[in-house]
């Protein structure tokens, strides 16, 4: 069987542009470096680096309140750190915050030794945050689905980037 195309950073950024994203509020992980370079080159995207991930949810909510369309880009470790902001701001204030979450430790094959991966989906379910998994370019349109879902439900939605070995790199 031919190998499926992996998830390219271009496909992700195309989705951002299609959805009118104005700001990317982010803290890098080891998989997103190439994505970072591409975002910097895209002058329609304003990048906001944070010191700690919980800030990113509140900053994104403030941007929405001011009329902009942000996306949050963090690792699942940072998502776990952001729980009180996801709950107290995105959920309770009904803010359509879309988070792209690097799915560290995710695997389809064999055991999942990384607790960051094992905790990710049960935590999102406990927090009542809907989520989508993207692994290949063909899945990229689920980013649009996430934006639609966030707008419809007036709440946060996660997109888990489960690209096992490759991340956003080439």
């Amino acid at each position, binding site marked *: 069987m031919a190998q499926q195309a992996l998830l390219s950073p271009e496909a992700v950024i195309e989705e951002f542009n299609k959805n009118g994203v104005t*700001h990317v*509020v982010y803290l890098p992980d080891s998989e997103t470096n190439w994505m970072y370079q591409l975002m910097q080159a895209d002058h329609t995207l*304003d990048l*906001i*680096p*944070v*010191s*700690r991930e*919980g*800030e*990113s*949810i*509140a*900053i*994104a*909510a*403030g*941007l*929405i*309140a*001011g*009329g*902009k369309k*942000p996306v949050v880009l963090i690792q699942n470790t940072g998502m776990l750190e952001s729980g*009180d*902001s996801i*709950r*107290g*701001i995105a959920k*309770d*204030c*009904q*803010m359509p915050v879309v988070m792209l979450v690097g799915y560290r430790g995710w695997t389809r094959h064999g055991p999942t030794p990384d607790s960051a991966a094992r905790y990710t989906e049960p935590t999102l379910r406990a927090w009542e945050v809907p989520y989508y998994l993207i692994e290949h370019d063909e899945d990229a349109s689920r980013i649009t689905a996430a934006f639609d879902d966030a707008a419809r439900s007036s709440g946060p939605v996660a997109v888990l980037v489960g690209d096992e070995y490759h991340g956003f790199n080439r």
Partner: protein
Amino acid sequence: MINQVDLMAVVEKHRNNGVVVPTMTGSRGWNAVSNNKDRDIPLGGAMGKASSFALGVALAQPDLKVFVFDGDGSLLMNLGTLVTVAEKAPKNFYHFVLENGVYAVTGGQPIPGVDKLSFAGMAKEAGYAAAYEFDDLEDFASRADEVLEAEGPVFICFKTTPEIQNEPIGLRPASGVKPTRVAIKDLMADLGV
């Protein structure tokens, strides 16, 4: 020591059409003096994140001034915000901390580092354009024009008298402060976004 409502009355004269984001006991105080509640976002739902939310508003609306009344315990919970704000350096961002030395909402327990740390010092070293500290309202009032017209991000630490809340939650008088969710809707309608 400064009474926080007296301080807020001075700030209100300078806010014009600016957005104000108070938190913790500051939310109640600001609610008592504000003349433009459509542009107030009292935010206590995620402790420490008022300044982060305000940063988002400031970056989205660069022509509007955004004022934050942070708590000292709240700021300690999110000190990285000082660096995040300084990195983006919004010229319209005015970050006040009400340094009352305690967690007033939860009964007045001292914050760690009280009498050792300097919030203004931390903001200055994080890279804010200017950082001030006032423990006398007259001093501030006489310089408010200059300080609140200065290009941001501006940080001001006010040494305030704690308004400690000790009654059981259920017995506390209603604050009259709008839920954040409603305040955000009102702001968006007022801004036409």
